[in-house]
């Protein structure tokens, strides 16, 4: 009896939790939803009502190149990040803690270092007279300096550098949850190392790989800073195109259209991820 009265009192005193959400909700509504919708509206309203901006965007080879660049770079960065990141995450998950702590500190340091500082470092490292070209020439591997910057090669290297931690850290978490006894059992049953890897470890870590790959792909698609600095002007990606329409060309209609394309692709992939995870959890 006393308890019910008491909890009742607590309950009445605690009413109105929805009010707590109000500041965040107002912020998101006025400065996120409204401006994004306004921008997208402009793509069908400016310079006149109609779909001409989308026709121009999707019908021209110049812009087609931008789309191809964007998807190609995002795809290559994703694949390279997974191929390099998976073994690293694997060893990190099982190595003695005193070592893994050092490796983790290095990964986090690189992740937390200012993005522009990291990109600047790659601009310097990859330039024609940079350390990488100099070293390769001294080793006699090349005669002429390679063009590593102001092209998509530079963008891919710089982006892989940035994305690698985003693959390693979640994958490490996934591999840590796999019971080593399962792999011991597979080995006891006569499976070789290759078979153990391909038929036990890899399938068990697949949800982590898929999630990491999707995240890196989505992040790469919308990346602006690194492609703009390492790619040069002739190798544009989608995010740069959005910025260019607005900043240099002051063409809000085309800018809005390009933003919509980027937004739709991102949200669609995000929806895939949500669905994939929900079904994976459902099992």
């Amino acid at each position: 009896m006393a308890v019910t009265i008491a909890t009742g009192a607590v309950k009445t005193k605690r009413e109105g939790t929805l009010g707590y959400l109000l500041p965040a909700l107002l912020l998101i509504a006025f400065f996120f939803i409204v401006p994004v919708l306004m921008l997208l509206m402009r793509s069908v309203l400016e310079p006149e009502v109609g779909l001409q901006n989308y026709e121009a965007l999707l019908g021209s080879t110049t812009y087609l190149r931008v789309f191809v660049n964007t998807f190609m770079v995002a795809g290559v960065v994703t694949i390279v990040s997974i191929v390099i990141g998976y073994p690293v995450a694997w060893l990190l998950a099982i190595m003695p803690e005193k070592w893994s702590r050092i490796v983790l500190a290095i990964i986090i340091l690189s992740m937390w270092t200012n993005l522009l500082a990291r990109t600047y470092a790659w601009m310097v490292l990859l330039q024609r007279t940079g350390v990488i070209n100099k070293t390769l020439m001294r080793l006699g591997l090349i005669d002429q300096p390679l063009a590593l910057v102001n092209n998509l090669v530079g963008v891919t290297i710089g982006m892989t550098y940035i994305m690698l931690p985003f693959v390693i850290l979640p994958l490490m978490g996934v591999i840590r949850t796999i019971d080593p006894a399962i792999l011991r059992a597979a080995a006891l049953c006569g499976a070789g190392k290759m078979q153990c890897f391909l038929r036990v470890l890899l399938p068990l870590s697949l949800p982590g790989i898929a999630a990491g790959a999707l995240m890196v792909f989505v992040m790469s698609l919308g990346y602006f800073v690194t492609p703009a600095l390492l790619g040069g002007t002739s190798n544009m990606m989608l995010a740069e195109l959005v910025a260019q329409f607005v900043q240099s060309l002051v063409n809000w209609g085309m800018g809005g259209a390009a933003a919509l394309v980027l937004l739709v692709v991102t949200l669609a992939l995000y929806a895939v991820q949500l669905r994939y995870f929900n079904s994976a959890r459902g099992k």
Partner: protein
Amino acid sequence: MLLDFDKLGGLRTFLIALVVLVCVFLILPIVFIAALSFGSSQWLIFPPPSWTFKWYQDLFADPRWFYSALTSLKIAAIVTVFSVVIGFLAALGLDRGRFTGRDFLRALFLTPMILPVVVLAVALYALFLKLGLAGTTIAFVIAHLLIALPFSIISIGNALEGFDRSIEDAAILCGASPWEARLRVTVPAVSHGIFGAAVFSFLASWDEVVLAIFMASPTLQTLPVKIWTTLRQDLTPVIAAASTLLIAFTILLMIVAALFRKGRKA
């Protein structure tokens, strides 16, 4: 077998070699920039012909660098305060509220984090042009608050999830008002989440480039904008000096965070 570190056999050597290589790859640019900032070569030749503090002197001699750092600090500090307060309230509302659409609302609050930031930047730029706020501190704070808030909601939300609510109820039963209970019982109990929220919010604003490029005006620039505009002109070693200071700042933050975590465990 494959998950037993001691039984990997030859595979272990291969994996260790790969991890060492990746570590070198990750640390190389950072070390390299720090070294070049003390090198005398204008064209960033490595190894540098001799060592110098010239670039640091240039950096400190130009007041624009100092002012942009000050602007960054000011904006990041304001963003941190708002992000933690609004984030705490929102996390509390999401944690306590039992209403339909809660998951949707949570996802909505986190969306600015996953959307391409350039879209948000362009959209906000258009809005602030219309409102006459373009190039103001308010515009900067609002833009950065949008991307800092998700970090606060996640960090404080996780802490609240691990907090036993009946402790707060007990305080209320003992005569505390709900807000008294929250401020004197709940807030201290989730202080690690609040600390995390503050650090991430600060960094989100301090390091942010894309929104900042669109929010900046010739008279109002944050440090990343200053680096960006300088980088677009040339690769001067002054940027290496600025970057090195930023890296030192990052390491300092990591140490503080590690000490804080250690202190909490003890």
